[in-house]
């Protein structure tokens, strides 16, 4: 059986989102022995299914002072520790003719009391700063918003945890929580690769599984009152805006347009869904229509910009224990010690919160874990940069100039994606520099680096690490090239063919809700290549 069976970890963390990976890092930094388990891949839940907005907190300033204050604090921390995951774009809160301009002063006051710097900008100047904004705006306020790549952020946390000794198992799903009377002492996992079950033991089990934590808690025999809220978003094929664009009003549907990498995103809708549907997220025609209609109000050019994908994530909202109906739901951080709450020792849940506050959530969870294990070590995650973001004597530019001599596009893209870790990408010989994905500038070297060092099990994982297939062609040509490389490393071509078919299906899921214009043309072309010429089938093994 598995060699880890006999080992007892200090802590087993469930969930490979930002919170789980962040908690794994924090625990590892405090000297604990850590196992991080994830049923699919890193950042596949709510972490990877949001705006990628580095909130200034301004959005919550009027309605939720506490969240706003947390956001701006974490915003400033992430700029220091995760610089390579962040674009410091700044944001504008726009008042449209249909909005109440009186809200603006209330908004500015609330921001300043939460510690968020604001600057009221003359609409004409705002339009010069951000030409894509609606020319009819009657007010604009500048705030320190930004963009954050949640895949990169989560991966950096996981990588650092691993560097500090944590064990990580992806494609491992929790199928049971192991208990010894009133004490949780481990988890039973199903390995999706090997198709077998194994038990792992730990002194503490930390449930950081987001909305799926609802089911994890059930395995432990405790009930958490969770309310899944679906949020849908659209990805546009170009980056029309330079700054984050928000509506200056109380939070509503589709009122944030975030630029990120080569694209921009409009979102979100908000809709309560039954817990049974959390694994079956689809974006409806109505969702798409609302997002476009509202998005065009922020930036009229969206009306003619190609939409690449639609997707939806689930916010893990938690109702207070005395409020089973979920009427007064908190969006704040929820940390539960199930010893205190349910009389179950060795089990804690960290949930609620936001991508922005993942580090703080990890800190709070780790503080509790340390307290339970009687470990007295301070949290340092707010000060020590993540791998890829370290300051060094040489500037990042110099590092990459040195490691890359030939190609501008892949060099710049890799540097953007991997920060100071870019030097790990093999280069120099023309084979490594050859481009796999032309839309996003991904080289063979970068793909190989990801396969070898970044826990890549399949093409969909590879996409999250490198952006292969995330560009305008949505994997039309690069999927096969990347599959070829993955196939070389796995030496299981039959599996690689299925993997390629799965990848195309996964791309299609996000394309089908918005498949008109160029997208329908593209999917027809893609189908002809893979099914028509290559003879690929949904099940090749």
């Amino acid at each position, binding site marked *: 059986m598995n060699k880890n069976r006999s080992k007892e970890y200090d802590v087993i963390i469930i969930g490979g989102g930002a919170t789980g990976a962040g908690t794994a890092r924090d625990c590892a930094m405090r000297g604990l022995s850590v196992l991080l388990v994830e049923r699919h891949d890193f950042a596949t839940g709510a972490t990877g299914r949001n705006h990628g907005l580095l909130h200034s907190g301004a959005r919550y300033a009027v309605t939720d002072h506490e969240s706003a204050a947390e956001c701006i604090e974490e915003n400033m921390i992430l700029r220091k520790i995760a610089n390579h995951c962040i674009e410091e774009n700044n944001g504008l809160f726009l008042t449209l003719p249909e909005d109440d301009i009186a809200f603006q002063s209330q908004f500015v006051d609330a921001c300043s009391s939460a510690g968020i710097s604001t600057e009221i900008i003359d609409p004409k100047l705002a339009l010069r700063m951000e030409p894509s904004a609606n020319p009819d705006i009657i007010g604009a306020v500048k705030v320190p918003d930004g963009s954050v790549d949640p895949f990169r952020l989560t991966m950096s946390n996981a990588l650092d945890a691993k560097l500090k000794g944590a064990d990580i198992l992806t494609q491992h799903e929790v199928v049971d929580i192991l208990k010894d009377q009133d004490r949780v002492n481990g988890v039973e996992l199903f390995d999706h690769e090997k198709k077998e079950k194994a038990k792992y033991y730990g002194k503490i089990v930390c449930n950081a599984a987001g909305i799926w934590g609802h089911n994890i808690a059930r395995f432990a025999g405790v009930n958490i009152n969770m309310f899944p809220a679906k949020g849908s978003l659209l990805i546009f094929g170009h980056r029309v805006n330079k700054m984050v664009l928000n509506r200056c009003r109380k939070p509503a549907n589709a009122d944030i347009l975030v630029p990120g990498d080569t694209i921009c995103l409009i979102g979100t809708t908000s809709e309560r869904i039954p817990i049974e549907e959390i694994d079956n997220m*689809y974006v409806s*025609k109505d969702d*798409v*229509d609302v997002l*476009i209609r509202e998005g065009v109000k922020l930036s009229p050019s969206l009306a003619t910009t190609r939409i690449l994908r639609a997707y939806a994530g689930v916010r893990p909202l938690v109702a207070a224990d005395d409020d089973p109906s979920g009427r007064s739901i908190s969006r704040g951080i929820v940390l539960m010690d199930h010893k205190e709450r349910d009389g179950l020792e060795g089990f804690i849940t960290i949930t609620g919160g936001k991508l922005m506050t993942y580090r703080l959530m990890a800190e709070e969870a780790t503080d509790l874990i340390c307290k339970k294990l009687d470990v007295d070590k301070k949290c340092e995650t707010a000060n020590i940069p993540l791998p890829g973001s370290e300051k060094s004597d040489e500037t990042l530019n110099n590092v990459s100039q040195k490691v890359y001599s*030939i*190609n501008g*596009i*892949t060099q710049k893209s890799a540097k953007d994606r991997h920060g100071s870790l870019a030097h790990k990408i093999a280069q120099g010989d*023309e*084979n490594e*520099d*050859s*481009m*796999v994905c*032309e839309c996003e500038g991904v*080289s*063979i070297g970068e793909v190989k680096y990801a396969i070898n060092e970044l826990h890549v099990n399949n093409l969909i994982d590879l996409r999250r690490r490198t952006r292969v297939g995330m560009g305008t062609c949505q994997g039309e*040509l690069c999927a*096969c*090239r990347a*599959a*070829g*490389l993955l*196939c*070389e490393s796995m030496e299981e*071509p*039959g599996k*690689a*063919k299925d993997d390629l*078919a799965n990848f*195309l*299906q996964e*791309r*299609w*899921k996000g394309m*089908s809700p*918005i*498949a*008109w*214009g160029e997208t*329908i*043309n*593209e*999917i*027809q*072309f893609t*189908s*002809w*290549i893979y*099914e*028509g*010429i*290559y*003879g*690929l*089938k*949904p099940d*090749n093994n």
Partner: protein
Amino acid sequence: MKFDNIIIGGGLSGLTCGIKLAEQGKKCAIVSSGQSAIHFFSGSFDLLGKANGEEVTNPLESMKSLPENHPYKRVGLDKIERLTNDALHLLVRSGLNLNGQADRNHYTLTPMGVMKPTWLTLSDFTSFDQKDSFPWKKAVILNFSGFLDFHTLFIKDGLKKFDVHAQIKTVSMKQFDAIRKNPSEMRSTNIAKEFDKENAIEEFAQKANVLSDGFDVVILPAVFGLFNKTIADKLKEKIEKPVLLLPAIPPSVPGIRTQITLRERFQELGGTYLLGDNVEEGVFENGRLLEIRTNNHGDIKFEADQFILASGSFYSKGIVATHDKLYEPIFGLDIDGDSNREKWFDEKIFNDQAFMHYGVKTDQKFRALMNGEPVENLYVAGSVLGGANPLKEGSGAGISLLTSLHAAEQILK
């Protein structure tokens, strides 16, 4: 400018129609917006590979089971056999060397290592009689170092089913040093251009001969002969073992050569080929299309007795989808398809997608409908026609060839 016939679209159907009409002495023009589906040609023309989910052995026979609104049925099964012969002869007269017959599919090996039924195959490629056997026991799969668009491991895996021992080897050629320097340049057409010059073929054949020692067959990507029509034959002469070419990721080198061959044939027959031009609008009167205007030619009108719309499917922009409608972008012809976008797609990408069946509505004579009425002198041919999913059926080339010949015959009557 006045022509007898003007064809909109320079792909397989437009060219076939143009050649047929020009061969009969018609003064023709083709307006082509650019590349066509031939640029990702597999090397084979399919007639009917699948019907009712079953693989087809005799396409002429299996056509009987197709639905009534299928283009083949609408052409008329009594005419199909003759038209398949006409199509073959037209392609051969144009200078293409093809193998295959309409009443019995043969098979070609796909780059996934799967046998696929088809009708006519370019002589570059290998036609197999049987789908479940492979005539060789030991195969060497050769690829060029740095070429990512040929997936040797998939081929090797596919050949396992035939009990073939396959080995993958890489060839380095200094001729490709320059194109490999730029990471996006190592693509099939650029490799083909080097081989077109003929100075690389000798060295490559020598290397291939050394590497194929002890093997029965040499498998190579189909990157030979872009403008040079004899280089693929020369390669086969110089390599001592049988050579099996397989398609690489598009653009397809044999496809571009085929496009050029057909275009040259059309031009040799006196046809006018307007490349890179788009038809902007047409002038209609009393149910007839009188003239069209193109983007490049401004206020110069193009008049003709008959027009043929062969503008292709979605990816060729013959039909356009927006979030709330489908339309035919040149004339606003009637569309055979659902206007509700929720009906266009199936959530599983490998299922039969409804949009693949959409096209321009026509009457019995393949004349386009506009507001429910046929346009007397505007015929529709090729994949802009609806009524079939050519991908699922393996009928794309057949529909293009046969409907365009049928349209030409209507005009020549």
